[in-house]
């Protein structure tokens, strides 16, 4: 469990350098990826529902990114992009392609549908997290002014 998160952390440091993130932000962005992957593994252990696991993991990534963006005064994209890098369904893509090549049409269709739904789950998670943060900060701002 922890091992996987560490792998995600190191891999994302590599990706952060490719995206030209520097200094403290690089560390925080990779930390976000580690935490979201941990959340994925943890949910998988409890429920074995892939969709739910990806959804919760991307909510975690989204909330983490928005909070860190406000603390460090950096665009949230920096952290969101890195946070969802491990969640991008590269393996689903590969296995559906593999089944297409082997000629198993029904299996390929199954896998591609699953891959698409994972991508949808990740997108929904980010959408949900960003919107929730917007609602919360709106309330807070009102509170301060009133």
């Amino acid at each position: 469990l922890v091992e996987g998160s560490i792998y995600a952390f190191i891999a994302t440091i590599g990706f952060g350098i490719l995206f030209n993130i520097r200094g403290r932000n690089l560390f925080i962005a990779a930390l976000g990826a580690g935490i979201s992957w941990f959340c994925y593994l943890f949910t998988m252990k409890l429920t074995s529902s892939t969709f739910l696991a990806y959804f919760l993991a991307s909510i975690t990534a989204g909330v983490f990114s928005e909070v860190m963006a406000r603390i460090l005064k950096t665009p949230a994209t920096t952290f969101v992009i890195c946070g969802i890098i491990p969640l991008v369904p590269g393996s689903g893509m590969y296995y559906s392609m593999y089944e297409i090549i082997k000629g198993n049409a029904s299996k390929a269709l199954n896998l591609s549908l699953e891959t698409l739904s994972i991508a949808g789950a990740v997108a929904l998670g980010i959408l949900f997290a960003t919107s929730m943060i917007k609602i919360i900060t709106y309330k807070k701002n009102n509170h301060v002014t009133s």
Partner: protein
Amino acid sequence: LVKRDDMDINRIIHIAANAGRIILQSGGETYRVEETILRICNAFGINNADSFVTPTGIMLSAADEYGQTISLVKRIHFRTVDLEKISKVNDLSRNIKNQGYTLEYVEHELDKIESLKKYSLRTILISSCFGAAFFTLLFGGNIKDFFASFIIGGIIKYVTTVLNRVNINDFFINIVGGSVASLLAIFFVYIRLGAHIDKIIIGSIMLLVPGLAITNAIRDTISGDLVAGISRAVEAFLIAAAIAIGSGLILRLWFIYSGGRFTW
């Protein structure tokens, strides 16, 4: 505010458009580009400016106090990923008003941001080696696979960087990247330096996977930029298809040649 003449309004919208261009070319979201442009215009006293941004172009118009309208179009031909530049321009535009920056200062700072260097090629290659290798571990590869994708990651990055310099389209670059990944994976397993072809390929193609396009597609759609959101989603889908085509082509040839088995 000081009264501005025609020269100034021209100069301001050029600065604003330039800042927007840097963000868009570095992979920023559409709403961030629009907001930055308007923020810069407002900070210098132009209150009736408006901008419309798509992933391939910026349109911007502003009117001076006599109602004379000036507009500007900037076409964006290529986009890379450079999150540091987005962050820097974002900071600069937010500070113009409260720090009282002058036009000259902002122009100068934008030039400085524009010429910021990326990490050196060697650092980029090494970090893609580590990125690919640790993703292989993450998806269940063993230590042999780790070293195989360590090497493959560097090679893929090198090939795609060289192709990017020649300015070929993304679709072709990703097809090449995908085929390099599966070709080398098969080769490494053949010489017994790797154990699982699938794990090595998955780890290596993570370098090509359109994480940025997906993220921006989501964030653009959330903020209501539907045109931009759809075009980014299509971009992500095309990149994914290109990777699958590239790696699938090689695997298919290998199946035809050897039936998917190794004959040592």
